[in-house]
């Protein structure tokens, strides 16, 4: 991490704590950072195991999104028919508000874990799919001609040209999808948690809200945003490492 965001963050926390002290606002309305840290320290395993549960959903959804997204991107690149058949539905899925359909999915899919993964996948799938599709179509026509001149079939062209060309696009999509998978997981947990499924950070946020344990609710929120930032950063590092290994970027 570079220094300016860290300094700005610490400054904001100090101002926040100062304002809480100065105004004397009660912790059940706005807890200060110290109260939040205290709430976390009071029950770290509770919050961390909830975080772990949310992260398992997130990464499972990200893995499923990768397989589905790359697979469908390859399909629409390989076949005009598949493009016409798949693309509109992918867009429809992308513009459907997950909050609206999560209750349905949770009701239809019996297993709560599978339901959460399904919701998070719906949210996370599209950036990987569309970026990879653009990447697969990115090689210049001259290179495609060169492959044809040397008798390359569709499979060799995919393996040696289209897929490697799509890698940077896929990684950019993966980074966006990583954040979205977390958002999707949390939204689905909210819906499921309201229905009594006790797992994940969203459930802790709901539960703490009901019990007016506002500092713990904020601690869960902070953990959530820290997880989001970490996923974004880790996927970014992973992508740069992979491209640097190929001698790019």
């Amino acid at each position, binding site marked *: 991490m570079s220094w300016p965001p860290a300094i700005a963050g610490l400054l904001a926390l100090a101002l926040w704590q100062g304002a809480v002290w100065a105004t004397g606002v009660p912790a059940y309305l706005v807890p200060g950072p110290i109260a939040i840290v205290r709430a976390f320290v009071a029950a770290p395993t509770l919050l961390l195991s909830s975080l772990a549960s949310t992260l398992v959903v997130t990464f499972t959804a990200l893995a499923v999104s990768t397989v589905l997204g790359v697979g469908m991107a390859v399909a629409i690149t390989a076949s005009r028919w598949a493009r016409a058949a798949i693309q509109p539905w992918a867009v429809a899925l992308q513009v459907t508000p997950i909050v609206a359909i999560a209750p349905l999915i949770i009701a239809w899919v019996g297993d709560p874990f599978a339901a959460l993964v399904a919701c998070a996948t719906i949210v996370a799938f599209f950036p990987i799919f569309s970026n990879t599709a653009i990447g697969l179509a990115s090689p*210049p026509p001259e*290179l495609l*001609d*060169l492959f044809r*001149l040397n008798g390359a079939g569709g499979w060799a062209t995919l393996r*040696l040209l289209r897929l*490697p060309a799509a*890698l940077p696009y896929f990684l950019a999509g993966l980074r966006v999808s990583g954040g979205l998978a977390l958002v999707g997981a949390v939204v689905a947990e909210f819906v499921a948690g309201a229905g009594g499924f006790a797992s994940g950070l969203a459930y802790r946020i709901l539960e703490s809200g009901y019990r007016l344990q506002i500092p713990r609710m904020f601690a869960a929120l902070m953990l959530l945003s820290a997880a989001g930032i970490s996923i974004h950063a880790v996927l970014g590092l992973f992508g740069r490492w992979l491209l640097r290994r190929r*001698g790019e970027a």
Partner: protein
Amino acid sequence: MTLLAIEGVGRRFPNGTEALRDASLAIEPGDFVALLGPSGCGKSTLLRLIAGLDAPDTGALRWAGGAPGPGEIGFVFQDATLLPWATAEENVWLPLRLRGIPREAARADVRAALARVGLSGFEGARPRELSGGMRMRVSIARALVGRPRVLLLDEPFAALDEFTRHALQDDLLALWRGLSCTVVFVTHSIYEAAFLARRIVVMTPRPGRIATELASPLAPEHATRFTADYGALVREVTGVLRAAMVPAPSAAIDQP
């Protein structure tokens, strides 16, 4: 015996543009032919027809010994179009790799091809670590590595600076003399065509037609650039091109 007889070939694109009309040309083994003309004269279209990347609407291309199979055509594009993630060696290996030749078996040929274009020692370099001229050299090595029957080049040096261009032109002539392969070279530069080619095929635009053909009396070597004969050939080609271009508007503007 003629290597390739192009007989009355025409090509109209689906959008209605007539790119080429009734073009006939005989290419002999070991020829160095330049297709010369302004943009839109169908010279690149003709080159793609020769490569088999496109098919003519009328006429035919007759090859001695049958149409070339995979890897029998070497093609150099205006851009080097290398795989950015692959090293120079991997890029030159590509045509052989696509024909199922493993890296180890191809290595000697790949290294020899890189050496031929003066890039020994750059086997492990990625395209972004190479200059524009070096990238073009890798591209030429890639086109030559499979020992093609014909080498086709589509304005390969147009995007390079003049020093690099001269060096690559000299090297291309040396390669052609050394390998005695057949070369068809598309260019819009009169100087380049006059310097490189044994035969200069002048084309006119809309629709693309072959206006005339000139044989070059010049020696295929660097020193030719400084001879009076070279200057004379450039003037002659310019005159032919100008005559071929009448009724084009640019010719009319030049009239006093």
